């Protein structure tokens, strides 16, 4: 491993330790690394905004390109320039008199976002609604689906299509959960009936089951990352680079 790579790894380790030091308490070293971090991030954004976004999405399309051998090139669509004044209106936010104009580019961005909400609504939620309509009457009253490994394919196909009692009960629980939690999110009705209050309360409890399950599985992700950091410090840096 060459010197540069070692130096790079060492810098990474130092930065990691610096940021971790906040776990003990806020200190000068953390504050230093934090400001380097913020500075690098801002610098990178200023670089990327032109190199990765505006150049590709705006400038190149506006000015076009000259063809090289074989390809005819692309024309420049000059009207893209009209976006620039709209964008500049955003800077009016600091003007005392014309600050309202900064709402125009904001309005355009929000308009596009809003229009897309209507456009994507069904594609996202339709299949979810469909999947929520589960059969709750069993077609086969035995409790569990039998082991299919011993069956002929024809017999297995029939078994596969049957709804067994356990499945029906599960589906019923599923349906109840979805309705109960949905009822928890009714805001504008005063739920007076005993039935609705029970639904509401069980909705809140079932919601907690959902949140607990998320917590349980998300913890894995967090630990995976800290494990990877330790791998970086102790295996990649210390074991493989420093004491190799």
């Amino acid at each position: 491993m060459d010197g540069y790579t070692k130096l790079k790894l060492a810098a990474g380790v130092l930065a990691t330790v610096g940021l971790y030091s906040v776990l003990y308490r806020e200190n000068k070293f953390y504050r230093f690394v934090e400001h380097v971090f913020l500075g690098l991030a801002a610098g990178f954004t200023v670089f990327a905004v032109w190199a990765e976004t505006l150049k590709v999405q705006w400038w190149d399309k506006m000015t076009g390109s000259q063809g090289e051998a074989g390809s005819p090139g692309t024309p420049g669509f000059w009207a893209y320039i009209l976006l620039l004044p709209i964008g500049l209106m955003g800077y009016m936010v600091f003007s005392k008199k014309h600050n309202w104009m900064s709402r125009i580019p904001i309005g355009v961005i929000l308009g596009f976002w809003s229009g897309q909400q209507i456009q994507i609504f069904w594609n996202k939620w339709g299949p979810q609604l469909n999947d929520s309509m589960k059969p709750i009457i069993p077609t086969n009253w035995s409790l569990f689906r039998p082991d299919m490994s011993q069956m002929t394919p024809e017999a297995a196909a029939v078994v596969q299509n049957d709804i067994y009692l356990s499945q029906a009960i599960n589906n019923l629980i599923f349906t109840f959960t979805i309705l109960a939690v949905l009822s928890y999110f009714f805001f504008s009705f005063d739920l007076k009936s005993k039935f609705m209050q029970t639904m509401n309360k069980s909705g809140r409890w079932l919601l907690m089951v959902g949140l607990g399950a998320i917590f349980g599985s998300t913890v894995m992700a967090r630990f995976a990352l800290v494990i990877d950091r330790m791998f970086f410090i102790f295996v990649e840096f210390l074991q493989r680079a420093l004491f190799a």
Partner: protein
Amino acid sequence: MQYYDSGWVGVLVTVLIVAVILATIYRSTKMEGNLFIRRIAGLNAIDEAIGRATEMGRPVVMVPGIGGLDAIAVQAINIFAKVTQTAAKFATPIKLCCADAAVYAVAQETIRDVYQREGLIERFDSEAVQFVSDRQFAFAAGVAGIIRREKVAAAFFLGAFFAESLIFAESANAMGAIQVAGSTQTTQTPFFVAACDYVLIGDEFYAASAYLTRHPILVGSLIGQDYAKIFYAALITFGCLLTSYQMAFTMKTHKRENRQWVALEAPERKTKKDTTFGYIFDVESPTEEEMKVERPQRQPNWWEQAPEAEGGN
């Protein structure tokens, strides 16, 4: 194309829900008196949090999430405008940290507006709203630093939060701050529930502006959303019963082949796809034959490749 087969149902439902929301907005603007909204604990805590910050003489920090400029950020800033209104009256200093320049522009405009309307523009600190970074974790490091250095007494984390949510919540907790949090990202909600004092769950976040302002348009829209939820619940219940009935008590006698119904030799058990709702939701794609259209061709522009060259080497 999108209306093909049963595809029109999706369009119809979307338009219907939109129409219902607009109708309830219209109706509530015409109605008198205060409309009912159920209690949302997280929002009642706003005054308590600001009161404590005022007592301790420490600032209130607000973070509208790390997403770009969309309704979530706008909603967060709407709530923060309300928070700022109270803070302005008590001259409590605020810090609003943004992770997106466009969100920063909106927040700057809105917050100044709040001070102006309250007639307290001299209390407005133009550095109160600041852009920290648009990189997720640089932002997290920066905001955590601000929280710890400024020793904030109250923290509001509302908006689209991702992994960094817990960095904020635990940093604020280490400072002993009262925290009100809410995220539309359901995966972050449990962390907020574990680490914060008050949490807005799910679309309580979207209900917040209606709850705080009681503006008829917002309340009307909320009622419309509730109707849509009732529609969902009814649809699910009805669909569930119909599907159950069809799968348990009716048999499949015909199957669809090349757009034709063909009789089966023996009746089969229906699968989910054979039920009425299964048919409606599972939109069939048109066959290649049906997709074929002959249209006259135009001349390619000089920069376009001629059709025969397309895809070739």
